[in-house]
């Protein structure tokens, strides 16, 4: 999917990550690569699953991508590069992860007023409405929330500015089964308009079986497999095909 800019150039919509690398540096200056040679694209209207064993580099990839802190590579959103205009790119990224990227000693309402208001199209009413829908009080302090409540709060926060890309790292962890279902449905609704996409990293592979359109398998910092679930299902031609089965097979 692409759109024309004013000068007629064609710009690919969505997130593009090319040759992405992130390494931890020891006190002696040695680099240990956490993720290397990462290439993928996220087109609007789809949910992308990210799976891998513990220590594969999923959280590192997500965190370094969102913060724009990486050693090498190129990240762009709708043709705008992170290296040149990180603030413009971050304007359209949202993260759901633990710990929450919210002010711990402030209320949910205050977080909207301080941090939410950084975003150009922030809507405090929408945010507070979503908080209420998720059973959260706007006066609650973030530090007093449970893990599940923090995930709900971040989802509500995202609703305040509706970024083009949501990157969710274990978002259903800590959620009760009832709300997990609501959460998954909310993500599906989010991408239905064809303008948004979600990167969903999780160990609960059943969730991805339900909603993911595309899947990436990360192992030891590298992508082993990247494609649509449908294509992967046809390729492996396995009766018991599932994300969990694929992960066991590849890693």
């Amino acid at each position: 999917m692409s759109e024309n800019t004013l000068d007629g150039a064609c710009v690919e919509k969505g997130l593009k990550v090319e040759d992405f690398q992130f390494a931890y540096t020891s006190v002696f200056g040695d680099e240990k690569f956490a993720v290397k040679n990462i290439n993928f694209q996220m087109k609007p209207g789809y949910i992308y699953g990210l799976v891998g064993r513990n220590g594969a580099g999923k959280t590192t990839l997500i965190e370094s991508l969102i913060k724009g802190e990486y050693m090498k590579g190129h990240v762009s959103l709708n043709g705008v590069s992170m290296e040149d205009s990180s603030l413009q790119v971050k304007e359209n990224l949202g993260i759901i992860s633990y710990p929450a990227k919210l002010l711990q000693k402030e209320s949910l309402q205050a977080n909207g007023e301080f941090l939410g208001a950084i975003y150009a199209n922030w809507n405090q009413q929408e945010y507070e409405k979503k908080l209420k829908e998720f059973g959260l009080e706007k006066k609650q302090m973030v530090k007093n929330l449970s893990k599940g409540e923090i995930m709900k709060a971040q989802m509500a926060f995202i609703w305040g500015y509706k970024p083009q890309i949501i990157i969710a790292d274990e978002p259903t962890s800590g959620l009760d089964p009832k709300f997990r279902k609501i959460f998954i449905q909310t993500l599906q609704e989010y991408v239905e308009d064809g303008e948004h996409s979600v990167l969903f990293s999780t160990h609960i592979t059943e969730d991805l079986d339900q909603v993911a359109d595309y899947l990436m398998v990360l192992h030891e910092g590298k992508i082993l497999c990247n494609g649509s679930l449908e294509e992967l299902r046809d390729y492996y031609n396995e009766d018991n095909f599932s994300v969990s089965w694929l992960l066991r097979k590849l890693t």
Partner: protein
Amino acid sequence: MAREKELFQRLGITKTRRIAACIAEGIYILIFLIAAVWKKSIQVEGLLNTGVVIMAISLNYMACIKNQNGELEFSEILKYYPVDGTNVYKMIRGIIVKFTLVHWCVSLIMVYVLGKTEQILYTTVVVLLTGFFTNLGYWIGYGRAVKEERGRDASFSTSIVVCFMFAYPVLIFGIAACRALL
């Protein structure tokens, strides 16, 4: 920098608050001067005052740089947002350092210019007021930014310092006042 300045303002570090902090500092200096002129001497407590200020600077640096409890620091959180967090953090730290250093220099100068004697009452009064105005200055001047910069460890350490600055002098002051009155 426009977005950072906007965030700075929103966090409460407005021009008004900074002026208020300076006024608080001015009042402290005035009381210090009145005490010095009236009794024609200043306590060696200046060293104690200096120690407290150095501790305050250290605590703020500790809170700003390191959080032992896994809580995300304010400046770390901002990396996830479309704002240059480093600049905001530097602005906050710059003001805290300047304010504290000015306070320290003024105190030192006044101690050495006006001389020293052993007068417990004025030690107590000045230390009490130092603590009060320093903290008042911080809270008025830096609002929520400072509150967020302080990690749990730093808050605990700060509490100890505040207790020391207030409880001990209040105790001594109370004893001295009772002796004076009785």
